[in-house]
């Protein structure tokens, strides 16, 4: 599978994302600079974390107008898989590819810690391989990860039975990540690309990537030893 990892000025999780899908999971991957207007032969796009454009104005507000995002929108409209991680999630909401918005964490603190994710929508290309009932231990690192959406949008997102104490940033409905109705675009605040090797404290993140890989039929997945 070919992954395209976008790079905006001040993206800083692009290397981790590339490393995860290429070196750990054995796929071909390349960086796509924000000024490029084509995604080439990408099968999936990762919009990585970071502080694109310094988080100026609003997180992701400027990056969403980068030339490459036209190609991403087209790719998504054609059913291509797009995964936004942290700042990438923010870019996707600003671009309107996902509903809602991310605002400042409720306690105004930057949270850098491992959290536990429960899958609420198991039938998506991003979650299909996650073992039923498995909690994913994934790190977060954000100051503006509190998910907000209007009542109408929230009603369409499935609710999970999660305790408020497990919610690190005040997100409505304890949401850490969402996908669109068509299920080809997803965004999440936690960093699965930082949880693909046990050395980093958890390799639960790889379930999200192997789910993506499983969506392409007859794809040979080479796993690094």
């Amino acid at each position, binding site marked *: 599978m070919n992954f395209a990892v976008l790079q905006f000025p001040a993206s800083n999780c692009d290397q981790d994302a590339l490393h995860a899908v290429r070196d750990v999971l054995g796929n071909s991957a390349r960086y796509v600079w924000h000024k490029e207007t084509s995604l080439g032969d990408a099968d999936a796009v990762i919009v990585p974390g970071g502080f694109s454009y310094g988080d100026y104005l609003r997180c992701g507000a400027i990056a969403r107008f980068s030339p490459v995002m036209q190609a991403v929108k087209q790719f998504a409209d054609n059913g291509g898989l797009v995964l936004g991680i942290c700042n990438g999630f923010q870019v996707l909401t600003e671009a309107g590819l996902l509903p809602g918005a991310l*605002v400042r964490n409720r306690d105004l603190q930057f949270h850098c810690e491992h959290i536990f994710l429960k899958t609420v929508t198991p039938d998506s290309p991003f979650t299909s391989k996650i073992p039923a009932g498995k909690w994913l231990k994934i790190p977060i690192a954000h100051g503006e990860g*509190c998910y907000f959406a*209007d009542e109408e949008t929230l009603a369409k997102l499935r609710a999970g039975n999660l305790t408020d104490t497990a919610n690190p940033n005040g997100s409505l409905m304890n949401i850490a990540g969402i996908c669109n109705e068509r299920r080809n675009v997803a965004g999440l605040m936690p960093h699965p690309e930082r949880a693909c090797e046990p050395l980093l404290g958890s390799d639960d993140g790889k379930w999200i990537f192997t789910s993506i890989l499983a969506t392409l039929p007859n794809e040979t997945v080479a796993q690094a030893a």
Partner: protein
Amino acid sequence: MKAKIVITPKKAVVDPQGKTVRNALEQMGYQGIKAVHVGKYLEIELDGDNPETARKSLDEACHRFLSNPVIEDYKLEME
């Protein structure tokens, strides 16, 4: 020409910054402060001399980019 834009969080959005500032004001001894909402102020200097044309264009910019209509309201004034 100058445009003055004030961007504020929508009422439905929790504004912890506003609450924190309110609490700090109270602790500093300022009485009777019911609520604080923290927003953004932009000043945009423009060429041209037709405020109405500029206003229309900036209004679009406000809606499309300068504010996020999901979480923010804005007020635009031309000078």
